[in-house]
C-alpha cells in the first residue's frame, strides 16, 4: 500500500476534512487516488467522475467506483443529497459553467470542497506587473496552451459563493503544501474552500 503515502498535499488536506464513513463524490477524480485512500483509511464510500478514459481505467484498477462523464453537462446521473461531500479539485478554473457546477455540488451533496490555484498569489501578481501572463507551480501552462479559462483569487471565489447563496464553512490557503495564515490571498498559491448552502 505504498500508494497511500503519496497522496498529493492538497488531496491530503481534503482527506483530513472528510470524516470516516462519509459518502464522497470526487469530480475529476483522475485515477481515483483520493477515494482509494479514503476507502482504506476512513471507510469512506463514494464515486469518482472522470471524463478521461485512462483515469477510468486507473479507477477500476484501484477498486474505485467511477462514472465516466463530462461534468460540464451536469451531475444529472446523481440524485439530490446522495453524498456528504462533493469534491472538485483543481478543475474549476478549466470549467465553463462554474456557477452551475457549484449549485450541482450542493444539490447532490451536503458540503462542497473546491480547490483552485489562487490568481492573487504574489508571484502571479508580480508576473502580471512585469507584463506577462503568470506561469507558476499551480498554473503551469502558457497563455496559449492553458486549459484554464476562469482564473480567480481567493477573494473572488468567496464573492461568487456569496452571490450563489452558498457560505464558506472553512477555508485553507497553501503555498508549496504548507498552510498560509498571514495575507492568504497574497501569499497562498492554492486555495481549498469548504462550503454549504446558506
Amino acid at each position: 500500500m505504498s500508494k497511500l503515502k503519496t497522496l498529493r498535499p492538497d488531496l491530503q488536506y481534503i482527506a483530513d476534512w472528510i470524516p470516516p464513513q462519509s459518502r464522497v463524490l470526487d469530480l475529476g477524480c483522475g485515477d481515483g487516488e483520493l477515494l482509494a485512500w479514503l476507502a482504506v483509511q476512513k471507510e469512506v464510500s463514494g464515486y469518482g467522475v472522470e471524463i478521461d478514459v485512462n483515469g477510468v481505467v486507473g479507477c477500476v484498477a484501484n477498486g474505485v467506483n467511477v462514472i465516466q462523464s463530462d461534468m460540464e453537462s451536469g451531475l444529472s446521473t446523481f440524485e439530490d443529497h446522495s453524498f456528504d461531500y462533493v469534491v472538485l479539485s483543481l478543475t474549476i478554473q478549466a470549467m465553463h459553467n462554474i456557477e452551475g457546477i457549484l449549485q450541482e455540488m450542493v444539490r447532490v451533496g451536503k458540503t462542497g470542497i473546491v480547490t483552485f490555484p489562487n490568481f492573487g498569489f504574489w508571484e502571479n501578481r508580480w508576473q502580471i506587473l512585469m507584463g506577462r501572463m503568470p506561469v507558476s507551480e499551480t498554473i503551469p501552462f502558457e497563455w496559449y496552451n492553458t486549459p484554464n479559462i476562469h482564473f480567480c483569487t481567493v477573494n473572488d471565489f468567496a464573492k461568487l459563493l456569496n452571490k450563489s447563496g452558498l457560505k464558506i464553512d472553512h477555508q485553507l490557503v497553501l503555498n508549496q503544501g504548507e498552510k498560509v495564515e498571514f495575507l492568504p490571498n497574497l501569499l497562498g498559491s492554492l486555495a481549498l474552500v469548504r462550503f454549504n448552502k446558506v
Partner: protein
Amino acid sequence: MQLPRSIGLVSAQKAVFDEPITLSSGTILPYYELVYETYGKLNADASNAILVCHALSGNHHAAGRYSVDDKNPGWWDTMIGPGKPIDTDKFFVIGLNNLGGCHGSTGPSSINPATGQPYGSAFPLVLVRDWVETQKRLADRLGITQFAAVIGGSLGGMQALRWSITHPERIRHCLVIASAPKLTAQNIAFNDVARQAILTDPDFHGGDYYQHNTLPRRGLRLARMLGHITYLSDDGMGEKFGRLLRSGEYKYGFEVEFEIESYLRYQGDKFAEVFDANTYLLMTKALDYFDPARHYNNDLVAALSEAKAQFLVVSFTTDWRFSPARSKEIVKALLAAKRQVSYAEIESEHGHDAFLMEDPPYHAIMRNYMQRIAKEIAQ
C-alpha cells in the same frame, strides 16, 4: 505476466434436462437440452465461475477453436483466454447456447419428442427470464451456487441484468455491455422489419419450413442485412467502404455495384445458411419483451433495488442501436437504488459491434475489473 494467448482447442458439451420448465408464456417444455462450453478450471469452492451470455445471433462457442485449422475462433476470443481480460487461468468461464437457439440447444429446429418432427411453429416464445432460469439450472448442475460474474453484451447484457434482479444471491458482479434496460420503439421497429422479412418469405410456411425441405433464406438474409447496418456506425461503414465501386464505374442497374452492397449481401447469404429463421424470430421477440421494470410499476430503480451484485456498465460512443444514453439509464437507476456501479463510455467508431472488438481502453477496463474480482475471490 504471460502474454495473452488463445485457449486453444475446445469442444462443446450437452446438458439434458428432464425436469419440465414452465416458460413465461405459460407453455411447459417437458424436456430440453442445453449445449455449452467451458474454459479454465472451476476452483475448489466453485467461486471463480463466470457466465458469458450471448447476444442475438450468438451461441455457446465464445472462445477457442474446434480444430487446428479452424479459421474462426469463438465470438469473444479476443476477450476470453489465458492472460486475456477474462482470464481463464483464473476463472472458469461458461458459454452456452440459449434455449430456442439453433446451435445445439433445444430450439425450433430440434425434434419435438412428442411428434418426431422439428418443433417449428410449435416452439414457444422464450423470454430473457426463461433463459436465466435455464442458465441457473445449468449452474446447479455444475455445482455453482454463486457466479463470480455474469457478463453479456447487447441481449447478453439484458440476461446479466435479469440475473442480478431475479437471483441476486447468485451473482457477485454483473457486467452489462452495450445494452439497455429495454428497447426503444425504434429498436422494436427494426426488429419487426427483420421479422416481417422472414414471416413474408414464401418459403417460411408458417414456421414449418423444415417439413418442406426449404428455408426462408431471402427473409433471413434481409433480416441480417438490416440488422448488420444497425450494428455498424455511419462513420465506421464510411471508412471501410465509402462509395467504393466494385468495377470502378456506374452500371445503371440493380446488380451489386457498391462494395457495401457486396459486403451486406455476402454477410446476409452466409448467415441465412447457418442460422435458423425461427430462432431469429424468437430472439428478436425476447429482445422486444425485455423490460424488467414492467413488474415494478415501470420503476427501474425498484427493479434494480433487488440486486445485490456490483455492476460494471460499458457503452460505446457510436453505438446508436444501444446508445450510451441507454446505458446511462441503467447507471442512473443503479445509483438511485444505492447499488455499486462503475460506468465507462468507450470512444469507438465501430458502433454496436464495438463490444466484440479489441479496443485497448475497453479491454483495459475489462481486465482491471476482472482482476479486482479475482482478488476478491482469492480473499
